[in-house]
């Protein structure tokens, strides 16, 4: 105590009246144009507290990890399909002709120090990113966080999910290994299936008829610049709107649609969320260091005359893969033209899923006749209908996800693939309504009991 008093009297004696912190804050406040109180006010920005609000933060921090690791990878990756013959350190592929891109991924994985760690962290971060976005979206859905005035942020969020998924697919395609090339081949064929414009569109996207020699060079700037810039911009908008509107809160004492209760940003929230950033980065680094993912050297380079069994996309594309596998081969001949069956599961289905997802805040508002202004969340049990629709939707996607690995499941559990396929075809139609109905009944009963007994 006496030290501090001494310091203070020394400062006064030498005319240093304000600590560096005070001076910095004053300078910032003045130059941000907020007069004397903007910074003070914003530093005390209130964040309501719940474990569920951490989900979006996980997604945000995954994006930061992806950018950092991606920059490191970009220093070593060659976005070129120029043919080379491998003479690197991985013996089984020595002498094998391959693309410069694949060869550079082998080098950065096997020869560059920490290269494999960074690549695996990058891949894990992408997988966790999409998972965090999806769970974040489900949290929004089940608690009604998308209602007025947060409908724009719902639209931004769903757009982010789409962009992140697409960019993940792009990243998966870059190494030009056998799996990624097969994925591109399928993407080309799906584009080709679109009526009238399909073949032209596919040619414009890939720069010609598959396989083209320039597609990696074309995907690269999209993957590392175009889509990340779009994602960063939308994330900024998402957070900016969140900042202006304040975060939603769960019902509780002292809380209502006009009053927010929570932790101030400085010091507690800032300290804690920086900690969460480190935790997310730490977990992803542990995954990348200890759990092998996408060992591209085992797959070999892509050639159009090879393909492999148990070929799987990354998990977040599994539902699409599953839909392609489950949908029957209903090719349609229409007056001399052909509508390939794959058009329905691969082009129409994503539209059928994302369109209502985008429109959900309005659909929900109309169904419940509730266009009101909400800052307090609802508990899932308060809206049995909403919970039922959400649960049915999750069941639908889960069956598709399982179907995406049907050959793997069949061989792992010794099942007959055709029987498994038929079972899943039935389940994908039957299970979602059953799950929805079951959820509705259970949630409804709970709500009634709660109303009756208060428990």
């Amino acid at each position, binding site marked *: 105590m006496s030290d501090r008093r001494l310091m203070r009297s020394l400062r006064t004696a030498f005319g240093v009246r304000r600590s560096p912190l005070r001076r910095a804050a004053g300078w910032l406040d003045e130059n941000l144009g907020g007069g004397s109180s903007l910074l003070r006010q914003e530093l005390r920005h209130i964040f309501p507290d719940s474990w569920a609000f951490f989900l979006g933060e996980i997604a945000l921090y995954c994006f930061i990890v992806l950018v950092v690791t991606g920059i490191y990878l970009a220093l070593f990756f060659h976005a070129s399909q120029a043919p080379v013959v491998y003479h690197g350190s991985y013996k089984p592929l020595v002498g094998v002709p391959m693309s410069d891109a694949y060869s550079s991924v082998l080098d950065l994985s096997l020869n560059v120090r920490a290269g494999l760690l960074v690549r695996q962290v990058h891949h894990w971060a992408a997988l966790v990113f999409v998972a965090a976005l999806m769970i974040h979206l489900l949290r929004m859905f089940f608690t009604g966080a998308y209602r007025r005035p947060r409908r724009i942020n719902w639209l931004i969020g769903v757009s982010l999910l789409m962009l992140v998924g697409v960019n993940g697919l792009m990243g998966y395609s870059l190494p030009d290994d056998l799996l990624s090339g097969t994925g591109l081949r399928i993407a080309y*064929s799906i584009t080709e299936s679109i*009526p009238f414009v*399909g073949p032209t569109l596919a040619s414009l996207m890939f720069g010609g008829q598959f396989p083209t020699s320039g597609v990696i060079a074309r995907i690269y700037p999209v993957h590392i610049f175009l889509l990340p810039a779009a994602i960063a911009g939308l994330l900024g908008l998402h957070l900016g709107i969140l900042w202006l509107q304040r975060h939603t809160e769960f019902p509780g004492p002292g809380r209502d649609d006009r009053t927010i209760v929570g932790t101030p940003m400085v010091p507690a929230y800032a300290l804690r969320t920086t*900690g969460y950033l*480190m935790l997310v980065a730490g977990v992803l680094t542990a995954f990348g260091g200890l759990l092998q993912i996408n060992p591209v050297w085992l797959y070999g380079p892509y050639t159009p005359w090879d393909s492999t069994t148990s070929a799987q996309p990354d998990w977040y594309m599994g539902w699409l893969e599953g839909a392609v596998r489950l949908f029957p081969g209903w090719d349609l001949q229409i007056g001399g033209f052909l509508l390939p069956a794959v058009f329905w599961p691969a082009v129409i289905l994503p539209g059928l899923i994302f369109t209502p997802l985008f429109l959900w805040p309005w659909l929900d508002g109309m169904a419940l006749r509730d266009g009101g202004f909400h800052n307090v969340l609802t508990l899932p049990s308060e809206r049995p209908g909403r919970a039922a629709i959400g649960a049915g939707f999750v069941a639908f996607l889960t069956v598709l996800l399982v179907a995406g690995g049907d050959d793997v499941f069949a061989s792992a559990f010794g099942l007959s693939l055709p029987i498994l396929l038929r079972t899943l075809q039935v389940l994908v139609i039957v299970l979602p309504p059953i799950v929805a109905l079951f959820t509705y009944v259970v949630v409804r009963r709970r709500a009634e009991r709660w109303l009756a007994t208060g428990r």
Partner: protein
Amino acid sequence: MEVEDNAVSEREVGVPGAPPVPGGGSPPGWPAAVGLLATLVGAVGFVVAFVTNAGTAWLGGSLAAALLGLGVALAYWGRDLAGDEVISGPYPAPHDDAPGAAALGDDLEQSAHVITRRRFLSKFLVAGVGVFALSQVVILGALGPRPRRSLFVTAWRRGSRLVTSDGEPVTRDVLAAGGTLVAFPEGHTDAADSQIALFHFIGGELKPQPGRETWSPEGFVAYSRICTHVGCAVAQYMDEAKMLACPCHQSTFDLLHGARPVAGPARRPLPQLPLAIDARGYLVAQRDFTEPVGPGFWDAG
């Protein structure tokens, strides 16, 4: 109507189990200290692992320990502080309740009126901007050639010799009964759309499709190797069943009956290449495929 006070009003509200501590902030305690220790050890460990090139697990493990330690310390500390200080304030008011809500609409309508007052010019502006935006679509044309006939033809010509991927011509003696190999048209071993799977079935096993009786001389039969579902290489030969399967989505084709699909999502058979055997015993194509190879598209009907 009440005018909302914009300043954040701060007041302490009671939180059960976490009474406010005067002066704010209790000591971080041992978990944070342990976390920070892990950060120090992890950071040093990472440098050592990097310098000694110790491998991915050591690099990742040490870096993860450092990050997780720091994360635990900060998150724990932050939680600790959060328990001390719970504040409340107003949410921004709904638009309709805001004092300037009506004025905003008035202002905008007035601005719009200033522009649309010049009727011709404002319509000209819309037309000009629209035409300009549309005109830029032509740039997309530079991204790739129009497919035109390229999807309907392959590199196979009348008399093209079948060669292996090494360029070795295929004679009737190369392939034993029941065997298979991948072949290309001579001079085009890099033509992905021209790859075929060649089979040799003897003893009348092969049931040529109507109109294709002359396409499989001496039991040699060739099919396009690109799946008609979504284009993977149909690479899995099940020699006992005489089936060819696609590893991607498990479409399965019956080789003895014109490669018709018998399982999986593919609906169209693999196109068959009409074969002949020339005077010197080389396998050659009679002509190109009679239908487009690979996955379906609009004009292929």
